[in-house]
C-alpha cells in the first residue's frame, strides 16, 4: 500500500507538471485546486486532531510524531500550494490589462466577475430573509478584511489603524491578498496621508530642488488629502457624538467607515452600474430594477471574487467624495449606510466608465483559487507547514521507526509517547520544506543517520486516500500491495542500513 500511495502521489505530481505545461489562461488551476483540497482534507482528518485551533498546531507537532504518510501529504500540499500561487500570479499578470498592453486578453470585463458570482444565487432565491442572513455575517468579515488591508499598508503604523483590543474572529490574516487589496486601496485613499506625498526623491526628480516652479504640482497629493480630510472632520464635528467617536476611537471608527464604504459600493453597483432597468436615461434617471441578487452574495465572496479586482484608480476616485460627503452617515449607519450615501454622493461618470471598461481576472478558477486561499483548511495546512519548517530548523530532528511505521519527531516529549523505537537522527538540517516530486518519503528527502534498531512494519494504509479510489482500483492496488510489501520492506531496510 505504501507503493500505492507513492504511486498516486507521483501520478499527482506528474499531472501537476503536466498542468504546468498546459496551464495557459489558468486552465490547470481547477485541477490543482481539486487535488490540494482533497489531500488537505485527508491531512486534516488523519494528521491533526479534530477541532484543533490553528494557533495550537505548532505545539501539537512539537509534542507528537509526524507519520511518514502525513509528511507526504503535507509535502504534496506544500508543492501544490506553491504551484497554485505561481499559476495564479501568472494569470494575474496576464490578466492585468489596465495599462492596455495585455498580450492575451482572455479575461472578461469587470462586470463579468459579478455575473459569475451571481450564478451561485439561483433565480428567485434572494429573499429578504436571506439578505438579512448574509448581512449579519458581513460585519465580522468586513472587519477581518479591514485588518488584512491595514496589515498590507506600508509606511504607516499598524497600531494607528487597528483598535488595540480588537481580536478578529475566524480571520485568516495575512493570507488574504486579494481582499486586503480592496481594503488597502480604501485605506490608502482615506488614510495614507503624507507617507510618500512629501517624497524628496520625487521632488528632485521633478526638478523642484533647482527651483520652486513645480512646487504646486509636487504638493498636489498632500493638498488634496488634507483638504478632503479636514473637510470631513469639520463636517463630522456638526454631530458631537460622531465627533467624539472620531477623536477618541479613530481606528474603530474607521472600521465602521470601511463597512459603510463597502455598502456604498454594493449599492452603487446594484442601483447604477448594473441596474437592470431605468426609468429615463440610463445612469441619469431612476433605476427601477436594481440588481438585488448581489445582496445575497456574501461580503467575503463579493470582495474576493470581484471587488478586489476593482482598479485602484476607481477607489481613489470614489473615496474622497465618500469621505468628505458621507462620513457622518457612514459612522452613524456603518454597514447599512449605502442607500443613504448613494443619495448624497454622486459617483462620477469617470468611475463608472472605468468599471465598465476595466479588464480583470474573471475565470472561475481564479475566483476559486482566491476562496481556497481564504479557506480554514488552508489556514490549517499552512500553519502545519510553517510549524514544521520552524521546528525542523530549530529542534533536533529524528526519524523514529516504530511498529506502526516511521515518524518524524522534534522533541523528547514526542519521543516518550513513541514506543519500540529505532531512532535515526536526521543528518542534514532541514531548513526548508520545498521537497520536489518524487522525494517525499523520509528516505528520499532526508539523509538519515544510523539506527540501533530498525522497525519492521510498513506504514499504515491511508483510509482517506483509499476512499478516493474506485472499488476496482482498490482491489488492484490491494494485490499490488501484497506483492510490493516484501520488496518495500527489503528496500527500506537497505536504505536505512546505508
Amino acid at each position, binding site marked *: 500500500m505504501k507503493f500505492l500511495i507513492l504511486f498516486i502521489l507521483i501520478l499527482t505530481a506528474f499531472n501537476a507538471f503536466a498542468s504546468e505545461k498546459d496551464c495557459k489562461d489558468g486552465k490547470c488551476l481547477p485541477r490543482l485546486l481539486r487535488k490540494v483540497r482533497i489531500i488537505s482534507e485527508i491531512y486534516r482528518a488523519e494528521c491533526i486532531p479534530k477541532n484543533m485551533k490553528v494557533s495550537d498546531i505548532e505545539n501539537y507537532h512539537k509534542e507528537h510524531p509526524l507519520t511518514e504518510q502525513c509528511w507526504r501529504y503535507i509535502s504534496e500540499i506544500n508543492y501544490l500550494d506553491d504551484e497554485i500561487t505561481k499559476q495564479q500570479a501568472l494569470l494575474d499578470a496576464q490578466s492585468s490589462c489596465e495599462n492596455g498592453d495585455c498580450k492575451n486578453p482572455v479575461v472578461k470585463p469587470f462586470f463579468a466577475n459579478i455575473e459569475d458570482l451571481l450564478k451561485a444565487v439561483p433565480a428567485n432565491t434572494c429573499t429578504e430573509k436571506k439578505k438579512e442572513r448574509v448581512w449579519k455575517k458581513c460585519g465580522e468579515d468586513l472587519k477581518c478584511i479591514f485588518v488584512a488591508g491595514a496589515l498590507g499598508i506600508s509606511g*504607516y503604523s499598524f497600531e*494607528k489603524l487597528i483598535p488595540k483590543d480588537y481580536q478578529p474572529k475566524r480571520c485568516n490574516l495575512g493570507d488574504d491578498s486579494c481582499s486586503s487589496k480592496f481594503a488597502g486601496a480604501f485605506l490608502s485613499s*482615506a*488614510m*495614507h*496621508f*503624507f*507617507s510618500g506625498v*512629501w517624497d*524628496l526623491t520625487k*521632488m528632485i526628480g521633478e526638478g*523642484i*530642488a533647482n*527651483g*520652486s*516652479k*513645480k*512646487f*504646486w*504640482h509636487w*504638493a*498636489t497629493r*498632500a*493638498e*488634496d*488629502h*488634507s*483638504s*478632503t*480630510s*479636514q*473637510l*470631513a*472632520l*469639520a*463636517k463630522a*464635528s*456638526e454631530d*458631537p457624538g460622531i*465627533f467624539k467617536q*472620531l*477623536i477618541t476611537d*479613530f481606528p474603530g471608527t474607521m472600521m465602521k467607515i470601511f463597512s459603510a464604504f463597502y455598502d456604498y459600493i454594493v449599492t452603487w453597483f446594484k442601483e447604477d452600474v448594473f441596474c437592470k432597468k431605468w426609468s429615463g436615461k440610463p445612469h441619469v434617471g431612476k433605476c427601477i430594477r436594481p440588481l438585488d441578487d448581489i445582496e445575497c452574495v456574501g461580503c467575503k465572496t463579493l470582495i474576493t471574487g470581484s471587488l478586489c479586482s476593482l482598479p485602484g484608480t476607481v477607489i481613489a*476616485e470614489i473615496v*474622497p*467624495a465618500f*469621505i*468628505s*460627503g458621507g462620513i457622518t452617515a457612514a459612522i452613524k449607519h456603518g454597514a447599512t449606510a449605502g442607500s443613504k450615501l448613494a443619495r*448624497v*454622493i*454622486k459617483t*462620477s461618470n469617470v468611475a463608472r466608465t472605468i468599471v465598465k471598461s476595466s479588464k480583470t481576472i474573471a475565470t472561475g478558477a481564479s475566483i476559486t483559487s482566491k476562496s481556497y486561499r481564504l479557506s480554514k483548511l488552508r489556514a490549517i495546512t499552512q500553519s502545519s507547514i510553517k510549524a514544521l519548517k520552524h521546528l525542523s530548523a530549530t529542534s533536533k530532528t529524528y526519524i523514529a521507526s516504530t511498529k506502526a511505521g516511521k515518524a518524524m519527531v522534534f522533541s523528547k516529549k514526542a519521543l516518550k509517547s513513541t514506543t519500540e523505537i529505532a531512532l535515526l537522527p536526521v543528518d542534514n538540517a532541514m531548513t526548508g520544506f520545498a521537497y520536489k516530486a518524487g522525494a517525499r518519503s523520509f528516505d528520499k528527502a532526508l539523509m538519515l543517520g544510523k539506527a540501533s534498531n530498525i522497525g519492521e512494519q510498513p506504514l499504515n494504509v491511508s483510509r482517506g486516500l483509499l476512499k478516493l479510489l474506485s472499488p476496482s482500483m482498490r482491489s488492484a492496488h490491494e494485490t499490488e500491495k501484497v506483492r510490493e510489501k516484501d520488496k518495500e520492506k527489503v528496500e527500506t531496510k537497505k536504505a536505512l542500513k546505508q
Partner: protein
Amino acid sequence: MWKLILILFISLPVHALELKRNNSVVTIDELPDWTLSKDLFGIPFIYFSPEQNGQRSNISFTDTEVEFKLNPNDLQSTQETYQSNKRAWATQVNAKPISFIPFETFKNKKGHQVHKIGFNYEHEGKRYVESSYYINCHKKIIFSKSLRLKENSSHESLFSDFIHSLDCGGVK
C-alpha cells in the same frame, strides 16, 4: 483685588503646545478651549476650535521632513497651478470653487518664512475658507492648513496667531 487678578491673568504667558513626532518638535501657542487630536486620517496633528455656527474649525500641522528652501517668486508666478489643482479637487468631492486667496509671503514672529495661499469653496450648501501655509522653519518645510466656515471669521485671527507663534526648535 479683582484688578490684581485681572492683571495677573492678562500677564500670564501663553503656554506653548508641543507637537512632537520622532526627532521633531514644533511648537505653537496653546488655546485652552481648543482640542488637539493626533493621527486622524493620517494627519499628524490637528487642532479643533470650539463649536461655532454648528461646526468646529480646524488647523493641521505636519513636519514634512523635507529640507528645501522655497522660492517665493517661483511660488507666486506659478500659483495658477495651485488653482487648477484645487478646481480638480473640488470636482472630485462635488464642491464648487468660489474664489482664490492670492499667494503671499511673510515672516512669522519667530522669524520663519511663511508662504500662504488659499481658496474659498462651497460644499453641500456651506461656504468654506481654506488656507495652506508652507513654513520654512530652519531648513525644513512645515505644512499647515486651516479650514473654517465662512461665517466663523473670528477664527481667522486665531489661525494667524498659531502660524505666527509657530517655532521648530526641535527640528535639527
